[in-house]
């Protein structure tokens, strides 16, 4: 089987496991909903549309960031049961296919959550984006991939650590900061309509560059992490 075949096998496995229990997606959805409600209560979206537009971009990414962290830790713990991880190590498939399969599966889950959250955001915050909304269709996946690829990698890194729930957010924040900056600025720029296209393009290019660099680094280093003993 070639690389793509292995990759698809791992992807299908993760999707199937998630489909059977659906706890990841449900957890993420409820978490994101909670964030939206709390922030919606904190200030009045109808009374202050400008302020709302300024902060909604950040709120969206905060909700997604924290929701994905809860799911990411979980995505690797299912590999610990029944010594599946040892079996994965011994399998002849390249280790990076395991990583990429899982990262792609996580990406799909978070995209599903985003697809559900976006109308909810629009409704609860009375969102009326002033910029080019189609750009969001570019910004959201690129930004989400930055979070998911690093999150999946660091969740694997801390897999056998005693307090892995602490490690993931601790590691994720500094490493994804450039991407977070780009995605929050770009999203806010689109919502407010006050960034000119060159700036948004530059943020998008930065996001894309970040994604490429860190995906490569994660793929190359995953085998080392998997066989760390």
């Amino acid at each position, binding site marked *: 089987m070639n690389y793509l075949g292995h990759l698809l096998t791992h992807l299908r496995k993760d999707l199937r496991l998630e489909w059977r229990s659906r706890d990841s997606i449900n957890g993420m959805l409820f978490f994101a909903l909670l964030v939206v409600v709390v922030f919606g209560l904190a200030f009045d979206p109808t009374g202050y549309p400008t302020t709302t537009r300024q902060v909604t971009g950040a709120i969206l990414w905060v909700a997604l960031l924290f929701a994905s962290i809860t799911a990411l830790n979980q995505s690797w713990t299912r590999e610990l049961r029944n010594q599946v991880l040892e079996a994965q190590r011994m399998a002849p498939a390249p280790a990076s296919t395991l990583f990429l399969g899982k990262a792609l599966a996580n990406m799909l889950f978070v995209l599903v959550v985003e697809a559900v959250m976006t109308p909810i955001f629009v409704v609860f915050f009375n969102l009326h984006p002033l910029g080019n909304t189609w750009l969001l269709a570019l910004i959201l996946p690129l930004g989400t991939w930055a979070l998911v690829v690093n999150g999946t990698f660091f969740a694997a890194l801390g897999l056998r650590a005693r307090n892995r729930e*602490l*490690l993931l957010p601790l*590691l994720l924040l*500094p490493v994804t*900061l*450039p991407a977070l900056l780009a995605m929050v600025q770009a999203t806010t720029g689109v919502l407010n309509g006050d960034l000119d296209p060159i700036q948004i393009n*530059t943020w998008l290019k930065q996001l894309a560059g970040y994604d490429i660099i860190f995906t490569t680094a994660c793929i190359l280093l995953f085998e*080392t992490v998997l066989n760390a003993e």
Partner: protein
Amino acid sequence: MSRPSILRIAAWPWLIASLAVLVYAFREAIFIVPADAAQGDAGRIFYYHVPSAMLSLVFPYINFLASLAYLGWRRRDPLKALAADALALSAAEVTLVFTSICLLTGMLWGRATWGIWWTWDERLTSELLLWLLYAAYLTVRRYSSAGQTQTIAAVLSVFAAIDVPIVYMSIRWWRTQHPAPVFFGGPDSGMDPSMLPAFVWNIIGWSLWGIFILGFRYAIERRRQATEQEAALHAIEASLETPQ
């Protein structure tokens, strides 16, 4: 034990030399050089802040190179890999010490001179990130299960090395679009010659001190590793002696 290592021989003289230079540097900074025209006496924080900032950027490289050496030697020469790992850990701890000092003194300086504790410009944000990454590095080392710790920490070090320059550049670009307060200063801001003696003595003193504590921490780690290996050897020998 055979002849004492070079670290042992150099330790005491090096410590005394660094302390002597540091004391003299303190004297220079506080009592001898004149107060800064614009900042007054608060500018004297500069003589402790900037050397720490510069050193806080040197030790992460030592950690990165040692981590790469560890990853390279891991399978081929385990003994050298162990030494590389000890150096990586020591450099990480010393980085955290210098970065903490840089951040804290920087905040005190900023508040006294410009009235703000913090600003999200490229230098401060990168320094904060460096601190977070190395705090995470040390946390990973403490909480990983045995056997994995060194490799995982080494991988983290690689990520830190990739990440900090990217953070610096991306925030710098952002700040050229949206300027915010910047803490001026640093070695490229044009220093008045009357300030040079204090600055130079402090750089030398803190560099000597930094190398000393790096070496000290390295020696402690090597000793700990040797004790661990000895214990492992005993365990293996004991298991071989079980009666048939």
